[in-house]
């Protein structure tokens, strides 16, 4: 006991604290902080954990009472079955095509447009930028009917006919509409943080404006590009409402819709829903884990003067 007390005393002295009173106060503060953080982490991760556990339970065990929170008879049958009984490979492919195409379009156009807004002082550039970003301020729900109407009867251009309803193109166009303003905004802010003297130095070194952009400015904008890409990809991958309204079959339906199809009027196929949900959630979780550093540095670029 006395050894313990003297060790504590040494520790208190080492930390530069005056009294044991102060020490216990610090400990209490820390405990409260950790408890709150722990609760937060639990609230975030528990649903994901629970879906995972459910996805590896045999179908018959899913609704067992009491609920088991640990895998007692782990199985991959749910994962195998959703690919066997339903065209999950098509849904996944649709999601991949829609999300990656949207991402490529948004990053390409967003980067070039953002650079122009950052560097060129043309008439009306502020108004244009505001109207581009402002378009994103409209609540998406207000646009569902117009989008449905446009995609079902697209304006005829160059003699093209036909409906875009239930096509991946409809989703790609819609998601581009929602993500491009973000992409332009992020990239414009990113380029604003890159000194213009670098463009000028490139011009003196023998680059045209385009060459200077590609060879000098673009490589410096990688974090901004990464942030834009991740946001666009995850948005398109997760989007549900427009996908529900604009598609009706596996030729265009994406994973979120596929997962929702496990909910029938009088029955929910929990085990398969959980397996589908895990597949749908995976890219988001992986992207988040690996690229979070880029998201932060990409979004905060130019916020402080270095």
């Amino acid at each position, binding site marked *: 006991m006395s050894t313990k007390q003297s060790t504590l005393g040494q520790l208190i002295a080492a930390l530069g604290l005056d009294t044991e009173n102060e020490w216990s106060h610090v400990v209490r503060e820390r405990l409260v902080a950790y408890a709150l953080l722990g609760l937060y982490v639990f609230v975030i991760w528990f649903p994901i954990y629970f879906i995972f556990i459910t996805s590896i339970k045999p179908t018959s065990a899913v609704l067992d009472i009491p609920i088991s929170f640990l895998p007692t008879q782990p199985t991959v049958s749910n994962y195998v079955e959703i690919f066997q009984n339903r065209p999950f490979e098509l849904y996944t492919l649709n999601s991949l095509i829609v999300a990656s195409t949207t991402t490529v379009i948004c990053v390409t156009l967003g980067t070039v447009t953002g650079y122009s807004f950052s560097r060129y002082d043309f008439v009306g550039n502020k108004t244009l930028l505001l109207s581009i970003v402002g378009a994103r301020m409209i609540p998406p729900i207000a646009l569902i009917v117009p989008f449905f109407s446009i995609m079902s009867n697209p304006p005829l251009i160059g003699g093209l006919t036909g409906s875009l309803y239930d096509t991946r193109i409809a989703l790609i166009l819609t998601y581009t509409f929602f993500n491009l303003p973000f992409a332009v905004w992020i990239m414009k802010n990113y380029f604003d943080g890159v000194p213009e003297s670098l463009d000028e*130095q490139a011009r*003196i070194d023998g680059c045209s404006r385009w060459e200077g952009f590609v060879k000098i400015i673009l490589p*410096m904008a990688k974090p901004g590009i990464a942030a834009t890409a991740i946001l666009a990809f995850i948005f398109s991958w997760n989007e549900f409402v427009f996908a529900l309204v604009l598609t009706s079959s596996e030729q265009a339906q994406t994973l979120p819709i596929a997962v929702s199809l496990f909910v029938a009027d009088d029955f929910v196929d929990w085990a398969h829903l959980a397996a589908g949900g895990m597949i749908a959630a995976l890219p988001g979780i992986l992207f988040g884990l690996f690229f979070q550093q880029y998201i932060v540095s990409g979004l905060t670029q130019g916020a402080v003067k270095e």
Partner: protein
Amino acid sequence: MAHVELNDLVKEFDDVTAVDGISLDIPDESFTVFVGPSGCGKTTTLRLIAGLERATDGEIRIGDEVVNDRRAYERDIAMVFQNYALYPHKTVRENMRFGLEQHDTPEDVITERVTEAAELLQIQDLLERKPSELSGGQQQRVALGRAIVRDPAVFLMDEPLSNLDAKLRVQMRAELNKLHEELSTTTVYVTHDQVEAMTLADQIAVMDDGQIQQVGAPTHVYSNPRNMFVAGFLGSPSMNFIEGTLERDSAGKLQLDIGTETHDVPDEFDDELESYLGDEVVLGIRPENISLNQDGIAANVHPATVQVVEPQGEKTVLEVGLDTGQTIKAAVDPDTTVQMGDSVNLRFDRDSLQYFDPQTGESLTYESKSEQKLTA
């Protein structure tokens, strides 16, 4: 190497005229410094020469060719920016190579030039580092190195030392001097720091309001300013200006009535100043041309009271109040024992007096002083 010629150069941004019809000849191998306060148009002039801005009017010649319509990289210039503008994602070596690669220079020439420049600037050890791993002084050297490897006809430098601390700035200033001595490349340099301008330049161009106020050798411009702006801008502490009315004393000599006392005008200025008889005239005297007179009142000795004493090491700057109420500065011997509140007699060195027209600011004695200098 080439000379640069600016003819009636004008640059307008919307309603603002940044460069207002300047003409200047920058001789081959010279080190010309544009100096002036912020917004005087000096950087814009440099950017016009670089091809980063298009002239609204006028002509820019590099060598014998008009380059107005040429792109920056076709002008055979290299520029050093205030923030160095090193490519952050490239190593020092890649930074130095980039311009040469863009010009399709053969590999062996690139390697040779980069090695030579790195040796010249003593940055051999830094070649594989990224700019973010370098100190300010090292970044500065790399920026210079990148300009040197290009072996351009003209170096353009936009306040390249202003981001360095005071000690490093003095050191780099000396190195720039040495570098120019060695390479003899025509250099156009922009700064707001008059000490930099004085120490580096063969030719100094003082700018204000988009116009060149005066061009010449630094010492000539310093001792023979063409107008009150140049007189006040060059020199620290700056020139004192004392306003008075020009009149003749009973003996017929010109003198300036500066309130409670008079100041005798040296005879040699009789011709220039005669037409101003009865008018206001400004007397200019630099602080270092004022000394403390021990022998009591004599010609051009003015009684004053010491208000502030600022020892600066090599000199002591006094802020003194004349009996007329005006405050002026005097730079005196650092061994002086005067203290705040002391009464002193100030002697104005008669060879260093300048007279200006208070309306136009023009020097009334510029021609005559220039001639004196030439005949001497």
